[in-house]
């Protein structure tokens, strides 16, 4: 689960990491009031779950409260299209207004859950403010890392070592090491998979400030962190993805026009791939679960049909413990009840497959039954005018 910058900064503050003074505003008036109370120049920052906001015009400097109100009115309500937002962009509903920081130096600092090493990996780089993926590609030697075993703390010497490598003097490095230690403590305690501060700034008085922050939390651990779960912003998710999640379905919207419904995540991905190889574009990833019930299939149809781009549907079910005849009855009942009028290709395999195929064929509905995944993909590509 992702959270907003202003929420991440509040968490950092709770763990003793200095952040710029500021507050969040939903209207230009509120932005003005915050700027007035802070006094002096402020930065107005769009709060959306997508990086690259600065380049897209979502972050602006304002010299006084009048200007803060003006730039807030420009940013609020805009659709911010950034390198990470997708073509539709993200609607800005809130801005963070904070005191402008006198930047002496910008660093990169992050704590990530390292799935390969099975520990937390702490990363630092003197190339603050750049995307770390870009630094990794162009200057991998300028990223320094150290590791923290499960449940352990980051020792001050580890943090100092990283920061000395980044070129800080010993005194500033010790202060920065304390920031890293707090970030590690936060990651363990709140079960974050990413705590990123970019840039971590040394200001004109030699103090450290977390100027921007990004966090990601383990969805499976939210049950023991209600305070983190409460930070979720449902507005940030695609409306269809949100609806699917509420129904307990794994759905990801993609750009194409072939709706897919599959049982099992791996098979669902492989099904998208064969559609693409056949020259068509999948409209979605949809996993109705390893043991798809009639209820799940009905919900799956509802989600797929709400996407106006969908011109045809491919259903790929591997009946295991759950038998194909049961699944076929589910598909027929759901398609009949929802009066699905789009062409559908169904590929069934597994237990009682003959009976399942017979049920589909005799249903009177417009199912085109395919015997293999390759055949199903070719049929669906022809239906939507692929090659």
């Amino acid at each position, binding site marked *: 689960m992702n959270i907003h910058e202003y929420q991440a900064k509040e968490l950092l503050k709770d763990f003793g990491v200095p952040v710029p003074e500021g507050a969040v505003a939903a209207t230009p008036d509120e932005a003005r009031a915050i700027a007035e109370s802070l006094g002096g120049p402020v930065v107005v920052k769009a709060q959306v779950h997508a990086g690259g906001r600065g380049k897209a015009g979502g972050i602006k400097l304002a010299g006084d409260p009048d200007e803060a109100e003006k730039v807030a009115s420009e940013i609020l309500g805009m659709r911010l299209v950034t390198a990470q937002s997708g073509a539709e962009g993200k609607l800005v509903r809130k801005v963070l207004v904070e005191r402008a920081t006198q930047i002496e130096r910008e660093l990169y600092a992050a704590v990530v859950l390292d*799935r390969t090493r099975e520990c937390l990996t702490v990363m630092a780089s003197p190339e603050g403010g750049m995307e770390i993926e870009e630094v990794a*590609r162009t200057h991998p030697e300028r990223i320094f890392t150290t590791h923290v075993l499960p449940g352990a703390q980051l020792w001050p010497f580890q943090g100092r070592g990283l920061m000395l490598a980044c070129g800080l003097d010993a005194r500033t490095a010790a202060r920065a090491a304390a920031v890293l230690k707090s970030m590690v403590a936060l990651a363990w305690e709140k079960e974050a998979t990413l705590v990123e501060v970019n840039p971590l700034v040394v200001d004109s008085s030699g103090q450290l400030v977390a100027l921007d922050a990004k966090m990601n939390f383990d969805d499976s651990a939210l049950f023991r962190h209600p305070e983190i779960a409460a930070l979720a912003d449902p507005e940030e998710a695609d409306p269809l993805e949100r609806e699917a999640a509420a129904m307990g379905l794994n759905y*990801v919207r*993609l750009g194409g026009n072939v709706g897919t419904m599959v049982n*099992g995540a791996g098979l669902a*991905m*492989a099904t998208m791939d064969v559609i693409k190889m056949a020259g068509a574009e999948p409209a979605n990833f949809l996993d109705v679960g390893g043991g798809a019930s009639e209820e799940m299939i009905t919900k799956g149809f509802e989600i797929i049909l709400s996407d106006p781009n969908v011109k045809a549907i491919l259903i790929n079910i591997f009946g295991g413990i759950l038998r194909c005849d049961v699944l076929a009855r589910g598909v027929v009942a759901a398609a009949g009840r929802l009066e699905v009028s789009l062409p559908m290709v169904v590929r069934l395999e597994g237990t009682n497959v003959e009976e399942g195929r017979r049920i589909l064929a005799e249903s009177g509905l417009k199912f085109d039954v395919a015997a293999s995944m390759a055949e199903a993909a070719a049929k669906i590509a022809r239906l939507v005018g692929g090659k």
Partner: protein
Amino acid sequence: MSILVDENTRVVVQGLTGREGRFHAEQMMKYGTKVVAGVTPGKGGAEVLGVDVYDSVAEAVEATGANCSIVFVPAPFAADAACEAADAGVRLVVVITEHIPVRDMLMLKSFFRARGTLLVGPNCPGVISPGKCKVGIMPGYIHRPGTVGVISRSGTLTYEVVHQLSAAGLGQSTCIGIGGDPVIGLDFVELLKMFADDPQTEAVCLIGEIGGDAEERAAEVVARGYPKPVFGFVAGLSAPPGKRMGHAGAIISGGKGRAEDKLKAMEAAGIKVIRELGRFGEIVAETLRKK
């Protein structure tokens, strides 16, 4: 031979009194697996499917000589249950449960390492050595005893591949679903080594997906010289970056974990990459015939 499980595997089912545990325990028994005990704290003394239920794994092991556990316990308690099994001295623990917090998995893995216990999963279909023993939730009937080893990160995708192998006349020595989570037990690398030493296994199929670097590390093992033919498939060529594709571990992040890079690493290592899933079984059979 085969790896991990065989005729001598004696299984304790943790969560036998639950709906899932009971259903799959019955399926395993029908397949011929020796299910010798169940464990549910607080339900010791009960009997399910003719099997005695104990309050702790230690008691179950003591009474029945169980040497393998399968865990159907809900996510918040699953890591604790698995560690209890490791502490009781079983050799292999198979965790079916999905949505176990990653921090629990990290703690669990250091606990397992200290005891030398083997882990399969979590969030996986389990392990089967066809004709001998099934410790998992996969449909038994699609498997045939034979000489191909299968290692996969997915559930139904594994069934698809196994079904095709069986249809092409290729039986399997052991099939392992290693799980779709970011932090898992036995992975491609460790299982490739076990299959290399298994006389029954003549070829290995690796079924990967986007996210992490498990496929790249497997490719390194094969590149250093592997004694048996290896076949590879990776799901998610069309997956967009930054989106979780169902499995918690299936996400392309920071430009890493892409299917295309995995396939390239596999090809460079001498793994026979099969891009057309629909022809997987057929291509493996053809290739092995030519050898």
